Structures are given as structure tokens and as C-alpha cells.
């Protein structure tokens, strides 16, 4: 309402009432004829409080000084405050909000892995040589012989084949005994000729060299178990990468019934559409329930075991790869539906023969991106290519970053991370120094010399599932008979070692309340403007419109200056030749500025305020307006206006 009304006085004067003549006389833009007029007009009509007193006070020097000091003080005050306010705003402070929501929750994706990459029988061929050499090494180093026949058999064939590169060796500890660390690097200068006294002085490790064997180092471990495992794993990766490239996923046991005996969600049984399958080189076959590809979304409308996922798993390990899979059970991970499952990073192992109840509580973190914090909305501005076809997370980025530098440095891709097109997985038959390169890179990576941790920014919104587990024996002594019987019958498979062969898992929401931590800017534009406004009003009592007034004044000044210069310039140069036109213009301006019909208007304005004291002041300056059109043809417009006046004033 308030906004509409002031329109009326604006267009009003032109069509109605007394101004019909004015409407003709009034040009598009009118300028004052002199600075004095301009200033007088400004002083009379400005809304800036201090300025009126300072500039427009009558020539009382005392008063002027007084007002000047006051004006400067308040001006300083105001700008100091403005500085503070802007400083606060541009430091982009955030305030943390914690919301406690209770809502129906979307069930997260749950990935479960068998902890065994391949069935031993099926991969035995490839692993045979490695196993033989491992056993030989174990025998050499520790006098351990697992199966005599195999060793004997191996020994007989030992010379037939070339030995594997990077043999496991026993190494003496160098003189400074800071060897407590698990993984350390020793220079290639290390020699084995020191006489040893204690087994503590020995370390187990293997040698890795670069391309031309000029630089070598030993990857050493304090414990033989670690060394053997790591060494085995290193060779296994090579075998795997050969396998990966030439075979189809024929070895993947994609039969749900073989690993997952029963599956229920929310009191309903699951079906094939609810899960997807992927193969992890270390953790074996993994099944992801309720991921982004699954047909229907799982929701939990109530907390509790009955409204969660309940699985019975087979955890037998009779066909595990003996030297690789040292853990039995299953590995489970809870993650967001559109995130990849990093079983290494956030897994949870299940014990066989036990019912594991994992209760989750959800927590969401939302950060403000942009100026407010260093986070990325979707990873598009992070200079690392996302090798996983999933949503951006920091883990995804770090893994992609490592793979990227791996390819750049070593020329091949690390098998545990996805490989881009046209790059091979590392294998020492093709890339004979990749081990050297990898361990160097790993070292650089963990000390952040690769810059991965700085490159990869936090995502702005993260969902965290906090897990807490509790255990109970399963199945119970009284029920195990029929449970085992039924499970074996159902799956045409006999569970041999009873309790160790099965595990049960329940995953459910502990509560429907979830906490969301979000950030909000603590100084918004609105509050900033309000604060500026209050400061401004407090010290100056002026507003944005006053600033516009000032701007208008300045523009007017400039234009008037320009016009005056122009006039002087014209009168100087064109006085002889085009005097006629010049004189006409000079004549026209006073004529235009003093039309008889103009007189009533200031009188009319001045009569309207009830204060009689102002009216003489207002009427005193004669309405001296120079009607001037746009700059290109000021004289033409003046002429037009004068000609227009002619019939109005007979």
C-alpha cells in the first residue's frame, strides 16, 4: 500500500490540476543555472542531517566549526562501525546448529564380504608355486614345515622353476637400535655379514629395487608373521593382476544361498532385487544390500531388531586361502546408499557362532560451502578424477588421487583401486620395479608429499552411522540341532563344524532420532544491512536515499560544469560566425527559465506547508531552471520548448 501510493503524486502533477502548462514546459531533465542555485536547492531539500547544518548554515563561523567537528566525529564513528560490521561479515563466521530430528529413516546400504577372495581349490593352480616357495621360506627361516610331503615335493622341483623375485630374507638390525617401528626402510648399503647374537637383532623383510637396480631398499618387519603375510600379499597381487586381465569373473560364487542362508528385512524376506554383488580382491565376494541400484528403498519406520536387516551367514573356512585369509567370519560395513564400500577402511568383522546385533544411530553433518568453509558440494571442483562411479566422498578422492599418482610414477594401476581405461594393473613381470615404486609412493602418500590430503576436500554433507555391537551365542544349545539341520537341508550342504560355520547378524536403528549438525552463516546479508542501517540512523539519520541525493548533487555539479564550459567554449568560438544561433540560445534560456506560468508553482509549493516561515525562503529563489535537453542537442530542445510555450502564452 505504502509503496503504491507515492506513485500518485508523481505522475499526478503532469496530467491533472494546475500543471497542464507545466507539463509542456517541464523538460525531460532540467538543470540549475548556477552552482549557487544548485546548492541552495540542495540545502533546502536534502535529508542529510549534519550536512544541512554544516554546509547550509548561515555564515556563522562558530556554528560552522562546531557542526564540522560534530559531523566529522559522527562520520568517523559511523565508518569505524561500518568497518567492524563489514569485517565481521567478510570473515564469514558460521554458527553450528544441532537439530534433533525424528523421522522415518532410510536404511543405509549394508555390504557383507566373505573374507576370502577365491576358493582355494579354484585358484590353487596359480598359487601353487607361491605357496611352495612360501613354505620353503618358512622352513628356511623358522624351521616350520606345515606338510612334509608338500615341502619334500617342492624341494624336488625347486630347481626346475625360477625363483620368485624379491625373496624374503632375514636381515640384521643396523647399529642405531631405533628399530621398534614396524615398517621401516633401510638403505641398500645394508649387508648381512654382521655376526648375530640374538634373534631380536634380526628383522624379516624383502628387497625392492628400482628399474636399473641402482637403488634398493628393504621392506622390513619386526614380526615374521607380518613379513610373511605382507610378502605373500605382494605376490598375490601380482598373480591376481595377471588373472584379472585374462579371465572373466568365472570364479565368483554368485550364489546367494551359498553365503547368505537367510535374509529378512522388516519382517519380510529379501530377494535378489535387494542386493548387488561385487568382488573385492582381498575380502572376496561382497553383497551390498539396499544400494542405489536396488529396486525398492528400505525404510525403517520403527527402531528395533524387528525392523532391521537380519542375516544368517555361512562362515566356514575350509576352502580359504591359507596364507592370505587369516581371519574367519564375515566382514560387514554400513555406508550410504550411493557411496562405495571401502571394506578396508570401515569394516566390522563378525564372529562365527555368535549373533551380532549392530545398532546404528544416524548423524548428518552439513557444512556450508563456498566462502564459509573449505568443502565441496559434489567434488566437481576437486582436481582429482573420480575413478569410482559414485558420489564424491573424501575416501573416493584420496583413493583416486593415489591411483593417479601411482599411474604417473609407476606406470601401472594398483589392484585394489579401480583402474582408468588403458592402464594395466601392476605385475612385476611387466613392471618389474613397481614394488619399489609403490612402497616409495606409499611412504610419500602417508606423509602427504603427494598432496592428496590437501587436494581432496571434505564433502559438504556427510552422513555418519555410528555403530555399536552386542553379541549373544547363536544358535543356542537347545535349538542348534534343528537350526543346523534345516539350514543344511535347505541349501543342500552340510555344516560341518557346527557353530563355527554360521553367524547371525542383525542391523537395526537404535532410535529414530537422528542428530544433524548443520552450519548457518551467523551474519547474513539481512542482519548486516540491518546493523548498517541502525548504525547509520544512529549517527547520521540519513538513508540510502540520502546517498542517492548526494550522488545526484555530484552529477548535477558535473553536468552544470560541463554545460558552462561548453557554453563558454561556444561563445568564444562561434561568436562571429554563428552568433545568431548563439544569441538565440542565450536568449532562450532565460526565457525558458522565467515563464510566467512558472511563478505560481514555487508559490504553490511554498503555500502548502503550514509553516509560514519557510514559504518566503522557498519562494525567494526564483524558479530558475535551465531547461536543457539531452546533451547532443541542447539548443534544439530549448527551441522546441520555447516554441511550445508560444501558444500556451498568448
Amino acid at each position: 500500500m505504502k509503496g503504491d501510493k507515492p506513485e500518485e503524486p508523481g505522475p499526478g502533477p503532469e496530467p491533472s490540476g494546475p500543471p497542464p502548462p507545466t507539463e509542456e514546459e517541464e523538460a525531460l531533465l532540467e538543470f540549475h543555472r548556477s552552482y549557487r542555485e544548485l546548492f541552495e536547492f540542495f540545502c533546502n531539500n536534502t535529508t542529510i542531517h549534519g550536512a544541512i547544518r554544516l554546509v547550509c548554515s548561515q555564515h556563522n563561523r562558530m556554528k560552522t566549526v562546531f557542526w564540522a567537528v560534530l559531523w566529522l566525529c559522527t562520520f568517523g564513528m559511523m565508518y569505524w562501525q561500518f568497518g567492524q560490521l563489514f569485517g565481521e561479515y567478510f570473515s564469514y563466521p558460521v554458527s553450528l546448529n544441532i537439530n534433533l530430528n525424528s523421522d522415518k529413516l532410510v536404511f543405509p546400504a549394508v555390504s557383507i564380504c566373505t573374507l576370502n577372495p577365491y576358493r582355494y581349490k579354484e585358484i590353487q593352480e596359480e598359487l601353487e608355486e607361491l605357496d611352495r616357495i612360501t613354505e620353503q621360506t618358512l622352513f628356511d627361516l623358522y624351521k616350520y614345515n606345515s606338510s612334509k610331503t608338500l615341502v619334500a615335493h617342492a624341494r624336488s622341483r625347486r630347481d626346475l622353476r625360477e625363483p620368485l623375485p624379491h625373496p624374503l630374507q632375514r636381515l640384521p638390525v643396523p647399529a642405531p637400535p631405533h628399530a621398534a617401528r614396524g615398517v621401516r626402510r633401510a638403505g641398500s648399503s645394508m649387508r648381512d655379514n654382521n655376526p648375530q647374537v640374538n634373534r631380536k637383532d634380526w628383522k624379516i623383510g624383502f628387497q625392492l629395487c628400482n628399474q636399473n637396480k641402482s637403488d634398493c631398499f628393504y621392506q622390513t618387519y619386526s614380526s615374521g608373521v607380518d613379513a610373511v603375510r605382507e610378502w605373500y600379499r605382494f605376490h598375490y597381487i601380482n598373480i591376481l593382476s595377471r588373472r584379472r586381465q585374462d579371465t572373466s569373473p568365472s570364479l565368483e560364487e554368485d550364489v546367494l544361498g551359498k553365503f547368505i542362508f537367510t535374509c529378512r528385512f522388516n519382517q519380510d524376506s529379501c530377494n535378489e532385487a535387494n542386493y548387488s554383488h561385487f568382488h573385492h580382491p582381498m575380502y572376496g565376494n561382497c553383497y551390498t544390500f539396499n544400494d542405489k541400484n536396488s529396486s525398492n528403498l528400505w525404510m525403517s519406520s520403527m527402531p528395533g531388531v524387528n525392523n532391521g536387516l537380519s542375516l544368517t551367514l555361512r562362515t566356514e573356512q575350509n576352502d580359504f586361502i591359507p596364507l592370505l585369509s587369516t581371519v574367519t567370519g564375515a566382514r560387514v560395513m554400513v555406508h550410504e546408499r550411493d557411496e562405495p564400500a571401502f571394506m578396508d577402511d570401515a569394516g566390522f568383522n563378525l564372529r562365527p557362532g555368535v549373533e551380532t546385533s549392530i545398532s546404528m544411530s544416524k548423524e548428518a553433518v552439513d557444512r556450508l560451502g563456498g566462502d564459509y568453509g573449505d568443502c565441496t558440494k559434489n567434488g566437481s571442483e576437486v582436481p582429482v578424477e573420480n575413478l569410482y562411479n559414485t558420489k564424491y566422498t573424501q575416501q573416493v578422492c584420496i583413493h583416486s588421487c593415489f591411483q593417479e599418482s601411482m599411474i604417473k610414477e609407476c606406470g601401472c594401476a594398483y589392484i585394489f583401486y579401480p583402474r582408468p581405461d588403458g592402464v594395466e594393473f601392476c605385475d612385476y613381470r611387466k613392471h618389474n620395479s613397481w614394488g619399489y615404486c609403490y612402497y616409495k609412493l606409499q611412504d610419500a602418500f602417508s606423509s602427504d608429499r603427494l598432496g592428496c590430503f590437501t587436494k581432496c576436500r571434505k564433502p559438504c554433507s556427510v552422513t555418519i552411522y555410528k555403530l555399536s555391537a552386542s553379541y549373544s551365542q547363536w544358535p543356542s544349545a537347545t535349538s542348534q540341532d534343528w537350526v543346523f539341520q534345516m539350514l543344511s537341508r535347505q541349501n543342500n550342504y552340510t555344516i560341518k563344524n557346527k557353530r563355527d560355520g554360521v553367524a547371525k547378524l542383525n542391523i537395526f536403528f537404535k532410535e529414530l532420532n537422528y542428530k544433524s549438525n548443520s552450519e548457518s552463516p551467523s551474519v547474513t546479508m539481512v542482519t548486516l544491512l540491518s546493523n548498517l542501517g541502525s548504525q547509520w540512523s544512529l549517527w547520521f539519520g540519513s538513508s540510502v536515499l540520502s546517498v542517492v541525493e548526494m550522488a545526484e548533487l555530484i552529477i548535477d555539479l558535473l553536468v552544470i560544469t560541463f554545460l558552462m564550459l561548453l557554453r563558454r567554449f561556444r561563445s568564444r568560438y562561434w561568436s562571429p560566425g554563428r552568433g545568431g544561433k548563439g544569441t538565440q540560445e542565450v536568449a532562450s534560456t532565460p526565457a525558458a527559465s522565467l515563464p510566467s506560468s512558472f511563478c505560481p508553482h514555487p508559490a504553490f509549493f511554498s503555500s502548502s506547508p503550514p509553516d509560514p516561515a519557510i514559504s518566503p525562503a522557498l519562494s525567494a529563489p526564483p524558479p530558475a531552471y535551465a531547461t536543457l535537453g539531452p546533451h547532443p542537442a541542447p539548443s534544439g530542445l530549448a527551441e522546441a520548448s520555447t516554441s511550445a510555450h508560444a501558444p500556451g502564452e498568448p
Partner: protein
Amino acid sequence: MAPGEKIKAKIKKNLPVTGPQAPNIKELMQWYCLNTNTHGCRRIVVSRGRLRRLLWILFTLTAVALIFWQCALLISSFYTVSVSIKVHFQKLDFPAVTICNINPYKYSAVRHLLADLEQETRAALKTLYGFSEITSRKRREAQSWSSVRKGTDPKFLNLAPLMAFEKGDTGKARDFFTGRKRKVNARIIHKASDVMHIHNSKEVVGFQLCSNDTSDCAVYTFSSGVNAIQEWYKLHYMNIMAQVSQEKKINMSYSADELLVTCFFDGVSCDARNFTLFHHPMYGNCYTFNNRQNETILSTSMGGSEFGLQVILYINEEEYNPFLVSSTGAKVIIHRQDEYPFVEDVGTEIETAMATSIGMHLTESFKLSDPYSQCTEDWSDVQITNIYNATYSLQICLHSCFQAKMVENCGCAQYSQPLPRGADYCNYQQHPNWMYCYYQLHQAFVREELGCQSVCKEACSFKEWTLTTSLAQWPSEVSEKWLLSILTWDQSQQIKKKLNKTDLAKLLIFYKDLNQRSIMENPANSIEQLLSNIGGQLGLWMSCSVVCVIEIIEVFFIDSLSIIARHQWHKAKGWWARRRAPACPEAPRAPQGRDNPSLDIDDDLPTFTSALSLPPAPGSQVPGTPPPRYNTLRLERAFSSQLTDTQTTFPH
């Protein structure tokens, strides 16, 4: 014409036009713009040049729009909350701890009630999987049951027949009991047909539930027979137990002395008297520590496992119900004293032959209610009757809601939740088709068709204990011998057998530290802040104030409305008078009635057109002016009196 115009101008000049008395809206506006303190308005009137004036109008309007926009933003964000987190260090009240054995009743005690059911379950297992007992003891018992069985009719299987379905063929089913094929005309509720072919067995197990008239049946299938049997057993079990009185059930379950072998709290020994009985329909007798009526709530003076609750529980695995529960252990729920322990839903399980340490960390949360969020303090604004004897929580509300719907739709209450007033638990003698009804209702509940989720609001304040569980082997190899023998001697009154380590579980519950974290919501904005912000906006853009706003209301609403009203009134009057006196000889004198607002408008039109089309204006206007004056004497009189009035006030 010229003399008329002159007179008009003169009158205008002499006539003091004050706000409310302004003759027309335009003059009122001019008066307002010249006198107001609001910036911008004065410039509209004062500045010269049409473009300049237009610009000023635009500036002013922009400023007004900005004020409105910003103030709207301020007001809309008024109901936001800020959160403060406080951490107190103080002596903390120990929460109530409810401990249940996973198995509800001693199997030896309830066996006589469940004998028929068990026998039929075994029969079904045998038909389906060829399962027979292995141990001699059980075989002997099985023989005795089978002899009993011959006389009776299999009522359980008739009520809800367990069936095996052929792969992909849901129409034909094999009845477990009779073994004969029978046609099933029913919907398969769970479409598990995809699963079937990946299982090696070609059959899917399920059971059929029918409504009263058997015309509408639903078949529930399970991907695994284990689940099917358990679910089927549970249904019948609930049926049977619903008919048993509460006292009898309590007697059949474990006593406090039996369950709690030792108890230690805050360094002081405690015993069964410190626990109160809580009977849960599905978990039997549970015992709650630190929940005694009329007693002060215990508190711990220190954090750490030494100062918490330490109990050793006796879990007799031999007394377990083989079909109802398949896991062994106990359940622990940590809750507020006035809260209901939801044993079924949440609860930490305790493993036998293990020491389970549970470290707690207390977090309290307080939410702001109504305008800020949709939470509730108590039951007053939720249209659901509380069937639990406990304070409000979302979960209680949902369960109560479901139970109420159950009573409404099926006529009886579900067994695992408390009984609402005037209803009784479902059993198939009185409510033959409650199972069908329950399953339908539960599906509807999960799909949120019952409206419970929208009725129930979250609670405004809650306490939460974050638990960290750790496990250790207990008792250790070396301590096992003496520990078990001492405990056997201790418990010889209750337990008439030598204790085994798998019969026992140790539980430690303690505060990790005595820090209490409270998360509190506070209003982010107060009224003063809102006002000062709005004031800031008004000042920033237009240097306006509340007085300005009042002024605007006065001028734009009251005054202009009164002017318009006066206008209309005069118009009507004039029109009326003209009709009365169509011909008036004194018409030429009319020009003096300039000030009359009704005339102004009439007068304006010809002048405006004349202004637009200049050349014909002088010619057409001169002859035209005298005739169209239609004034009456009355109006003129009114004007003249006004004129004299104003002249006396302003002798100009």
C-alpha cells in the same frame, strides 16, 4: 477562459491546503511529500524534470520494496533456534538398568502348555526336512510325544497350515502335515519367487493365514525355512501364552535370585532386593536395577568400571525354548527411571562365558516446543491413549497407536505390547482370524497407512546414554575352577547343579566419566532483536521510523479515504441536484466553484485533452467553457463559506 483560469490560480494560491482538509488526493500527496521525514518523497515533488522525477519515484519505490523484502526475511527467520552445548561435571544419577534373559520361561515349566505345539512343529520339521532328534534323551521324549500325538487332531497346522511351495508355482502347495498336494487360492504376500531358483532346494516355505470366512487368505513365504518355522511357532506361542494369567507366567519365569548370581554396585554389594520385577510378554521376567519406588535414585560418585554395576547372570541354556529363541544370552536396556524398557527393540545383548563391559556417556537433549518445532512434552497434545505406565516417547506413542488400531480392527490386543483398557489379548479361541488381521495391519503400519507416524510427535526432552561395549573372555582358564565352584556353592539354594562357564555371563555397566553433555535449543531471535533489525532496515533505506509508518497510515488510508468518500458524496449530491433542477439560470457563475472536488475532476478532462492536442485547444475551449458548467447554488454556497473561513485563518 483566461479570467477563469486566473481566478482558479488565485484561489489555489490563497487557499491554505492542509493535510486532512486537502481538497483532493493529489494535493494531499503533495502536502505529504513536502512535509514527511521519510526520505525520497520530498525529492519527488521538489525536483524538476520529468526523468528526474521518475527516477526519484523509482528510487523511493525500490527502497520501499527492499524494506518489505528484508523485513519479510527477518520475520520469516524469526522462529529459528540456536543450540548450546553444555558439559557439566557432576555426580550423575545412575540410570535404570533392566536385565532380561533372552529365554522368557523355563522350558520345563511351560512345556506342558506347549507340548502340542512342539509336537506339531517337530512333525512339520520331519515332513519337510526329515529332521529327527539326535540325542537319546530327546528321542525318548519324542517317542513319548508321538504316542500322545496319535490321539489328538493337529489343530495348529489346521489353523495356519505350514506349506512348502514348488518353485515358481504358487498355486500348488504341499501341506506339511498331510503331505498331500492341495490347491492354494491365495495371494502370495511376499513375492519371493525370484529367490527360489537360486536356492538349491526347489521349495519355499510359508504359511497361510485366512480370515473368518476363508475366502480371503494370505500366504506368507520366507526365503528360509528357519524363519518360517520360527515365525509360525511364535504366532502359536503367543496364542497359547495369551490365555495364561500373569501370576502364572511370572512363576514360570526366572526369579531374581536365580538370574542374578552376584551383584555389586559402586563398591557396595547388592542383591535381588535392589531389583524390581518387570514382566515382559516376550522376555518373561526382567529385573530392573535402580528403579525402586519411593527410594532415592542411586548415583555414582566416580566414573570407571569399579564404581558401576557389576552382576553375574545365570543363564541356563538347558531351559531354553528351542523354537522360540535361537540365541543364548541376556539383554540389557539402559533407560530412564520413568521410561518403558523396550526390550524387544533396543537392548544390548550379553554373551555367555564373556565379561561384557558397557561404558556409558550421558547426553541430555532439550528441544523447544511449539512455534519452533513439532515436539511434545507429554500426552496432552497427542490423540492417543497411553497404554504404558511411562512418560511420553515417540516409540511408546507408535506402539500405543498400533495397539489401539489392533483393538479397533481385530477386536483384540497384540500379545507383545501392554493391554489397553477393556481389551484382551488375542487368542484363536475367541478371535479365530486375528493372525490374518494382525499381519495385514502390520503391513499397513509399515507402509504408514495407519497414520500413526503422523499423529505421534517426537518428545521434547530426552536422555540418551551412549554405550560402548567391549568384551573379554571370562572366566579365565586359571580362575575358572575356583570361581565356578564358589559360585555353585553360593547358589546351591537356587541352582541344583554344578555351574558351567557357559551358564554364566558377567556384566559391567559404568559411567565412562562423570561429564554430562546437555544439548539445549534456545530461541535464536528475541523480539527486541527483531525490532532493532526492522528498525535498522527502515533506517537504512528510507530513514523511516514507526512515526513515519503511522503518518503513512494516516495520510494514505484515513485521509485519502475520507477525501474519496467526500468526493463521492459530492458527486452523488450533485447528480441528485442536477436531476432535481435540470435547467439552471445561474450556470455561468460556476467557474468560481473551483475548489469543489467534484468539479475538479470534471474540469480536468477537457484541459487534459486540450493539453494533448494543442492546436485545436484554444478554439474549441473558448466556446466550450461556458456551457458545461452545471453547478447548483447550494454548492456555490458551500464553497463561499469555506472561502471566508480559510481567509480568516490565513490573512495572506
